[in-house]
Structures are given as structure tokens and as C-alpha cells.
């Protein structure tokens, strides 16, 4: 800080007073700029040191070769990969189908729940009871109940595929959560929007469709994507029904060879799918927050 330093060339006419303050200001800014890279250097260095040390310690451990053979056996991984990948393709298909079904069904539930007026009371009660019921039940239990239970009934005209009922179970369960996310988004839209829609003559459904939902969906998209990430993994629950998804295929290999590397392959595939989606969700959340900060007057 050199406030005594001679001010740089300045017009001595108008901004004389301003000019005298100026030299003292850039000084701290310059200091800050030089240190701007320091935190990054520290971060990178500390990450490398810490994880390097952990990695070193692990691989030097006495038991490491055994662990490596059991979990990270390259040959076993290569051998199990085709089957696990084929299974994973089922996971992806189930995931996409369930996502669409959940997205729609949960929206219906949320709309039921936000309808006002005495005539809609049955719909409201239905939605509340449904959400309580399915949110309170372990998804695994539902999968077992529907996936084994319904096909065992042998009802005429009802699908008897375990896969079908597994997807239904996951959908029923996740829709309860997604409905609450939707509802939060709908309720977060300012009341003035509803008043404006009503004053323009829009019915409740029209107001939802044209005024409220577009805003609500934009608000809850990150939260919904978060659920989608969770669902991606919970699709593996269907393996308990004997559906040969990635986890099931990996288990089959494990049972045959007593080597767990196939499960690591499955884990890697799941992560390959979820991590980018999770990052994308983070990005959306961040962008959304920035937009909101800018938007506030």
C-alpha cells in the first residue's frame, strides 16, 4: 500500500479529488490477484498428497493382494463384463420406462392434492393416503409383494411377468416422493399468479396447465433429477425377482467363481450412468440459483 506514491498521469481539471484517492486502491487488488491461484494450488496439492497417501497405504497393506484378487481381478472383470453389460441394459430400459411412468403418475397425484374445492375432496384424500402409504413402505417390500405376489395369483387378463410388476412396484413407490416434489413446486408459485389466472377467467386446470405448472416444473427440475439418480440405482431391486439385470448377472458370476470382481463391474456401470446425471443436476441447481439471484429486484 503506497498511498504516498505519485499518482499516475491525471487530468488536473475535473477529477482531481478522485485522482488522489485512486493510487491507494489498486494496491490491495494487485495483491489479491497474485494470490488468486494460491488456493487452487493448495487444493490440488492437498488432494494429491492425501489421496496418494491413502492409496499408497492401501496397496502396501498386507491383505491388499487378496483384496485385489477378490474384487479387482482383471481377468474376472473381463470375463463377466459381457453378461453384466447385457444385464445393465435391462436396468437402463427399466429405468427409462419407470422414469416416464413416475413423472406422469406423480404429476397426477400432485394435481389431485393441490385441487381446492369441496368436490375434489375425494381426490385430495386419495392423494394424501396414497403418498403416506407408499412413502412409508420399503421399496424392496413392494417389489417382493407385487413382483412375486401378483403373478402368483394367476389372474386372467393381468400380466404375469415379474418384470412388469417390478416396474409397477418401483413406480408406485417413487411416485409418492416425486408427487411431494411436484407439490412443493406448485405451492411455491406465488399466490398472485393464481389470482391473475383466475381473474383472466382460467379454470383451475387451465391455470395449472398454462400458468402454474410451467413455473413449478422449472423450480423442481433439479429435485426431480435427484430422484432420477436415486431411481437409477434402486432399479437394481428388481434383481431379487430373478430378473437378470446387472446385479443379478454379477451375482451369478460370483456364485460360479467365488470372485466378486463382477460386482465391481456392475458398480462401475451404475456409477458411469449416475455420476454424469448427478453433475448435471448440480449444474442445473447452480444455474437456477444464479438466475433467481439475478431475477430478484
Amino acid at each position: 500500500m503506497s498511498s504516498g506514491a505519485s499518482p499516475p498521469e491525471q487530468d488536473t481539471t475535473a477529477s482531481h479529488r478522485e485522482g488522489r484517492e485512486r493510487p491507494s486502491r489498486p494496491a490491495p487488488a494487485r495483491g489479491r490477484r497474485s494470490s488468486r491461484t494460491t488456493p487452487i494450488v493448495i487444493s490440488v496439492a492437498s488432494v494429491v498428497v492425501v489421496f496418494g497417501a491413502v492409496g499408497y497405504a492401501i496397496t502396501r497393506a498386507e491383505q491388499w493382494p487378496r483384496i485385489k484378487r477378490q474384487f479387482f481381478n482383471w481377468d474376472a472383470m473381463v470375463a463377466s463384463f459381457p453378461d453384466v453389460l447385457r444385464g445393465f441394459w435391462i436396468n437402463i430400459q427399466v429405468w427409462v420406462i419407470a422414469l416416464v411412468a413416475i413423472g406422469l403418475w406423480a404429476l397426477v397425484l400432485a394435481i389431485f392434492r393441490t385441487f381446492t374445492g369441496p368436490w375434489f375432496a375425494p381426490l385430495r384424500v386419495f392423494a394424501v393416503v396414497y403418498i403416506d402409504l407408499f412413502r412409508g413402505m420399503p421399496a424392496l417390500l413392494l417389489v417382493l409383494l407385487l413382483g412375486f405376489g401378483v403373478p402368483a395369483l394367476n389372474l386372467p387378463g393381468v400380466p404375469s411377468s415379474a418384470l412388469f410388476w417390478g416396474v409397477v412396484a418401483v413406480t408406485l413407490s417413487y411416485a409418492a416422493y416425486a408427487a411431494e416434489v411436484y407439490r412443493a413446486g406448485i405451492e411455491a408459485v406465488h399466490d398472485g399468479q393464481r389470482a391473475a389466472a383466475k381473474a383472466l377467467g382460467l379454470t383451475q386446470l387451465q391455470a395449472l396447465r398454462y400458468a402454474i405448472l410451467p413455473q413449478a416444473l422449472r423450480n423442481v427440475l433439479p429435485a426431480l433429477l435427484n430422484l432420477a439418480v436415486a431411481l437409477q440405482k434402486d432399479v437394481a431391486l428388481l434383481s431379487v425377482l430373478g430378473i437378470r439385470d446387472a446385479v443379478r448377472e454379477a451375482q451369478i458370476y460370483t456364485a460360479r467363481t467365488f470372485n466378486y470382481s463382477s460386482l465391481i463391474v456392475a458398480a462401475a456401470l451404475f456409477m458411469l450412468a449416475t455420476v454424469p446425471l448427478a453433475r448435471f443436476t448440480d449444474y442445473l441447481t447452480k444455474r437456477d440459483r444464479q438466475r433467481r439471484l439475478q431475477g430478484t429486484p
Partner: protein
Amino acid sequence: MTDRIAIRALTKYYGDHLVLDGVSLAVAPHEVVALIGASGSGKSTLLRCINRLVDFDDGEILIDGVSTDDPQFGKTGLYRRIGIVFQAFNLFPHLNVVQNITLAPRRVHGLSRQACEDNARRLLDMFGMGECADDYPEQLSGGQQQRVAIIRSLATNPDVLLLDEVTGALDPELIGEVLRIIKDLKEKGMTMVIVTHEMGFARDVADRVCFLEGGRILEENTAHELFARPQHPRTQRFLQRITDAGRL
């Protein structure tokens, strides 16, 4: 001549709290009536009862001699005949200006998209807002947003316009452009009921001013008379406070 709006013995409770205590008020076609009074006097509630945004407990409201409960209004007729503009603009942020204006004509009144858009652009041009047609609300200043909100309420060609403190959320330098549009509408013959805290504006634009307190109209007179010679002591005190605050 039938009154455009006739409010008869309107009573409204919020829970146990009496907000409108048998209010009666008649508004002639092309007349502009301002409702003034302190916060909580019931003026906004009265305004929102007129287009049934708020339900009332007793009394009735007639539009051109027909009760607002009459089936002839159907589900949407009343909203087409009566436009309302809010303090907080309440534009739809995900729709651009033209989409905001055409939403009701298209979806509620079933007019063709082309006709609605042409009408929207014509209205925007008429009020000097043509350049904003494709902007989104957040890109506009408060004054511009409020002008768009006014134009949106005009899109269905209503006979009556309700203005609920339309300058209340605006910076002082933006109030003028909104008031100008309202004066414009008065000259075009629009029937308006205005709730406002801008006494100068009420005096300029209103034919008649009603002073409300405790859910009743305590005093009602031509704008000039009411501001120059308030009769009721409470009106005098209210106007005195406003004068002291430098708002008149």
C-alpha cells in the same frame, strides 16, 4: 341509465372479522371511482368482490343490471367483462409479453391465435409498448411490466377495469408512465374502480372518491369536493395525515 356496476349491501367476513359492512356503491358507465382509506379499510376486498375474485357473504353485485351470480355470465363471462390489474403486476414470468396478453383470449375465449396476437400487438402499439412485444417480464422495468399487465387486462375488451394499487410497487419515477395510460383509458371512456394510495392521482383521474373505514363507505363525493372540503371528521383526519406525510 342503468349503473354499470351496482353494489348493494355487500357484507364479507374473514373468519369472525367483518371486512365489508353492508357497502353499497353505484358506478355509472364511463365513470371513474376511486376508493381511498387506510390499510385494512376493506377497499381492496371490495374491489376483488366485484369480479368475484373474492366471495362475499351477503348482498349482491349487478353488472349492467344483471347479478354476477346470474347464469348468463357463465364461467368466464364475468372475467371477460371485468379486467383487473394488481399491485404486483402478476405477469406470468415464463411467457413473453404477447403470450401473456393472448393467454386468456386464446385459452378461455377460444379465439384464433393469429387474431389474438394481432390484437395484442395493436394494443401494445396503441400504448407505446410495441417494442416490448417479444420480451419476457423480467427483462422489463416495473413500470413497463405494469403497463403490460394493464394491456393484458384489456385484451378481452372489458367494459370495466379494476385497478388494485397499481402504482404501489413502483419506484416514484416509474409511476408517471402507468398513470398516463390510465388517464388515457379514462379519456377513451373506460369505466374504472381504482384503489389507490396516490391521492394526487385519485384527485386527477377520479370522477368520484369514496373514503372507506372499517368496511364502510364513510364519505363519498366528487373528487374535487372530497379533497377540498372533507365533511366527515375521519376523512379530515385521514387526509390531514396524508398531507402531513407530503403525499397530497
